[in-house]
């Protein structure tokens, strides 16, 4: 085995010995990484840019004298604010791969999604009046009439003064982004068993949504003044969560921005390692929000 890499930022590259194990650690750009086992701490032999420009790969050359089938290496990355670590056994001159991110803290295991089967939901600490944009990914597994993926409304009418994203039709109400009123929604088609990545921006007189490349907009000049907290997997209005309309869907990472383009919610699906309880870790409030409904979320595969 002989591998040659180009170094990040140019440089002459480097070569790793055939007899060494190669450990490739993918981290967010700007991180520093160490590999520690017992009293030995290694720094990367080479840094290379990952295909995703937001990530770098730290390449470690682990000599054969350090191969160990019982004591794992602890790989730690930090960007000065956040720290992430994982352990890995390195036993032969193969290539090993570790991915580290700062999406969740070390108490949690990130997963690809949380899936509600129709009775699970999460109440956030964000109100519609605070939100002026965001991104999220989802997959509707089955239709539930009128169901929202997330949202909150007012006292008198379920969509008046609302902000939310409806993924199933009901009566004459369409799927899409609701902003201020039922008449002001930005309608988009949502199919079952389809992965969607969504971006949206909303202000009075200007709403726009991009759902996996399909765009829609509205110039409705409403205002989402709801004072209820946005719920995930259903809708919250009149101080009541609509438990009869909890959607059946998978929800991945979701983030919301305020009028100053600052993140006010940045949630990653995960489960708590100590008891395997599923929920969303919010990087902004540094809180772990769990199911406020009944039953248990299905969790997606671990993100390694």
């Amino acid at each position, binding site marked *: 085995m002989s591998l040659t890499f180009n170094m990040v930022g140019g440089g002459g590259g480097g070569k790793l010995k055939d007899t060494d194990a190669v450990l490739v650690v993918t981290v967010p750009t700007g991180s520093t990484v160490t590999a520690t086992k017992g009293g030995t701490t290694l720094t990367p032999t080479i840094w290379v840019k990952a295909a995703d420009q937001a990530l770098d790969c730290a390449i470690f050359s682990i000599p054969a004298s350090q191969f160990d089938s019982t004591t794992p290496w602890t790989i730690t990355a930090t960007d000065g604010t956040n720290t992430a670590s994982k352990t890995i056994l390195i036993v032969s001159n193969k290539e090993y791969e570790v991915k580290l991110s700062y999406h969740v803290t070390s108490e949690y295991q990130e*997963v*690809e999604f949380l899936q509600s*089967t*129709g*009775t699970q939901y999460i109440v956030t600490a964000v109100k519609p009046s605070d939100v002026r944009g965001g991104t999220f990914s989802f*997959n509707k*597994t*089955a239709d539930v009439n009128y169901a929202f993926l997330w949202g909150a409304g007012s006292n008198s009418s379920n969509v008046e003064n609302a902000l939310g994203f409806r993924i199933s039709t009901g009566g004459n109400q369409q799927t899409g982004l609701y902003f201020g009123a039922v008449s002001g929604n930005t309608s988009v088609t949502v199919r*079952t*068993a389809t992965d969607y990545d969504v971006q949206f921006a909303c202000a009075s007189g200007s709403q726009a949504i991009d759902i996996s490349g399909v765009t829609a907009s509205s110039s409705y000049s409403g205002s989402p003044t709801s004072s209820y907290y946005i719920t995930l997997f259903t809708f919250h209005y009149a101080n009541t969560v609509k438990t009869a309309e909890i959607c*059946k869907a998978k929800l991945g990472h979701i983030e919301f921005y305020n009028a100053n383009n600052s993140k006010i919610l940045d949630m990653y699906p995960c*489960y708590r*390692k100590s*008891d*395997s*309880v*599923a929920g969303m870790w919010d990087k902004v409030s540094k809180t772990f929000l769990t199911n406020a409904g009944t*039953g*248990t*979320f*299905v*969790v*997606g*595969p671990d993100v390694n």
Partner: protein
Amino acid sequence: MKTIYLDKDYMCHVNNSDGMLEIKTDIFDSFCDGAIECYRFVPSGEKWQRLDGKIIHGQFIQPVTPVTIPDAVQTQYNRDEAAYMEELAALIEEIYNEDMEVIG
């Protein structure tokens, strides 16, 4: 509410075999049989130790195959069922029309 059967690794099965644990749950109500067998279900109060030594506490449900597999199985099932319902509706309409001709 569906009845599923769990092997010693808490893998889901829709048919019983010796030594399996029988569970009744509504978690899989909207899942077809093929998709159910792509999941691990650790019941409440139970623990499962992964190969890497980590302990998973029940209740915990997670696909054990790449998630595209249960999704594809479920999608195919939904299509087959929709096609079957269309065929059934067409057959009923054909019989109805034939009956109306006889009556008429």
